[in-house]
């Protein structure tokens, strides 16, 4: 089982993005997902910039995967998608079925992203026939459901699981960050840049609940499966996806590497660098915001 650095879901300055991936070259992750998968208005890095980064990371020995946009709305979104698919140098993660159509049409092997909504072996089988070689379950899928699904996993299909980070929960045509600033989406003034880990949303009692990230809504809680590595291994999961955060990403990766090596205090290490409370309810078939440690307490 190895580690994957998931696509950057937030909007950072160009310098910050380049610095982040410059460091990532030296991090002990097998694979790096690159590209803008959330909002087409984010433009500080365009496809050629991502491709240049991809070359650098590949030269540093990483497997590079380009992640496609999850909500495709316009012809210009499709143009970007076609250019990304036709480049052909790198593996692509398909995050909606239009990308699946283009990739399978090009005969390119691909990664089936979690928003394709693969909930059963028949759908996974269909994707395998279309050229998927790795897949991610929906983030809401429990251990029990995943175990049941994997009893009929197609030959050669690898499973990657979202194992750390704020959960991507929803996508909209509306931008909730722009809404917060009373700006129309078309003139959002790129306020996401001011929120490198998203904009916190709490209940009227002040309980952290969600995180606004432009058109994407994330959990406030930080999903972590660091305590579930034996179960993940037993399922045959090949890779754990760690979702980028603006600070201490290297320490997050180190904590997971320590956990993979069987170190007892890995979870404590991780707890010190998490930007929010831990949650793991989904994995246990509960509400996503639940946390098993809290339930046991």
């Amino acid at each position, binding site marked *: 089982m190895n580690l994957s650095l998931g696509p950057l879901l937030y909007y950072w300055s160009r310098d910050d993005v380049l610095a982040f991936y410059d460091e990532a070259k030296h991090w002990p992750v097998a694979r790096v997902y690159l590209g803008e998968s959330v909002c087409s208005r984010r433009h500080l890095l365009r496809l050629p910039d991502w491709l240049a980064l991809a070359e650098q990371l590949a030269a540093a020995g990483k497997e590079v995967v380009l992640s496609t946009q*999850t*909500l*495709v*709305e*316009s012809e210009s979104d*499709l143009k970007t998608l076609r250019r990304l698919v036709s480049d052909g140098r790198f593996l692509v993660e398909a995050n909606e*079925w*239009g*990308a*699946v*159509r283009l990739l399978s049409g090009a005969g390119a092997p691909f990664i089936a992203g979690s*928003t394709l*909504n693969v*909930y*059963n*072996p*028949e*759908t*996974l*089988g*269909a*994707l395998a026939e279309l050229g998927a070689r790795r897949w991610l379950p*929906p*983030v*809401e899928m429990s251990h029990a*459901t995943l175990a*049941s*699904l994997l009893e*009929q996993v197609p030959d050669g299909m690898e499973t990657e699981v979202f194992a750390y980070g704020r*959960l991507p*929960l*929803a*996508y*909209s*045509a*509306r*931008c*909730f960050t722009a*809404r*917060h600033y009373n700006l*129309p*989406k*078309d003139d959002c003034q790129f306020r996401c840049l001011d929120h490198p880990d998203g*904009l*916190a*949303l*709490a*209940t*009227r*009692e002040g*309980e952290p609940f*969600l995180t*606004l990230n432009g058109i994407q*809504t994330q959990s406030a809680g930080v999903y972590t499966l660091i305590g579930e590595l034996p179960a993940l291994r037993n399922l045959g999961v090949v890779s754990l996806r760690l979702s980028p955060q603006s600070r201490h990403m290297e320490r997050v990766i180190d904590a997971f590497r320590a956990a993979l090596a069987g170190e007892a205090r890995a979870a404590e290490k991780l707890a010190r660098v998490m930007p929010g409370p831990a949650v793991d309810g*989904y994995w246990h*078939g*509960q*509400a*996503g*915001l639940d946390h098993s440690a809290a339930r046991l307490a």
Partner: protein
Amino acid sequence: MPLDLICPAGNLVSLKVAIDHGADAVYMGFRDNTNARAFPGLNFDEAQAAEGLRYAHDRGRKVLLALNTYPQPDTWTRWTDAVDRAAKLGMDAVILADAGLMRYAVKQHPHLRLHLSVQGSATSYEAVNFYREHFGIQRAVLPRVLSLPQVENVVKHTDAEIELFGFGGLCVMVEGRCLLSSYCTGESPNSAGVCSPAKAVQWTDTPAGLESRLNGVLLDRYGKGEKAGYPTLCKGRFEVGGETYYAIEEPTSLNTLDLLPEMLKIGIAAIKIEGRQRSPAYVAQVTKVWRAAIDAVKKNADGFKPAPAWQAELNKLSEGQSHTLGAYHRPWK
């Protein structure tokens, strides 16, 4: 025919009033979590479905069956059985979201007409054409996130018929891509067929006001004189950056009556009315207004103007007593 009127049938009474008031087709679900309105007391058993089909077919109308949740591995046969039952009953189409279930339906029932559910999250013609090429879907229902020019672009680039939501509850998120409900309660439309399930709702009168909670999470608090709505998660008031407001979406309904001429011009095949969970009286009133409006726009698209009485009638039925053109209208975005 363009602009078919597709109305919700939560039960047999609603089905009949929808047909009586001019629906071209109704859509229904079986009584389990194979559809995205798996609410207690709602939906059809096999005998009721057969009676509903008879009622509609006798009057030259159609019945569509929503099987638009994502089949789970352990209960896969519940969904395939439902497809088999739909074919046996003679449903005019099944509305599916899951690619695996489509594959099953094509193999087992090649003559069964397939529609792509809004829960399939297809927002581009590339996605719609994927389902058309691989599973022969005849129609796609688009998520309520595209602007009308974007919808028009989809229509131009696919042979599949396009159906749009015209009226009712407004999902601000891409359908099929929203897990807010399961994050809060453990149950989502995708896997359990429910959003913000009633069993997780709790109302409490407190000195600070009437509070609505979903699985313990405070969604809103209403002062004196404020009208409290059903606590749908995305329509609560929350705190962001020190402000308390409808951070995601106001409790408002979608109403696209004004856009009917454009929808006709673009070549929209059907307009869907949301609300299988609503009362037969609601279904009757909404169907009546939309039948009149669609007939009027077909007669004279250029001179079409929604009658004030129609809008007043629909506003009375709307959630929060207000409505929006939603994403079809660009400034909303």
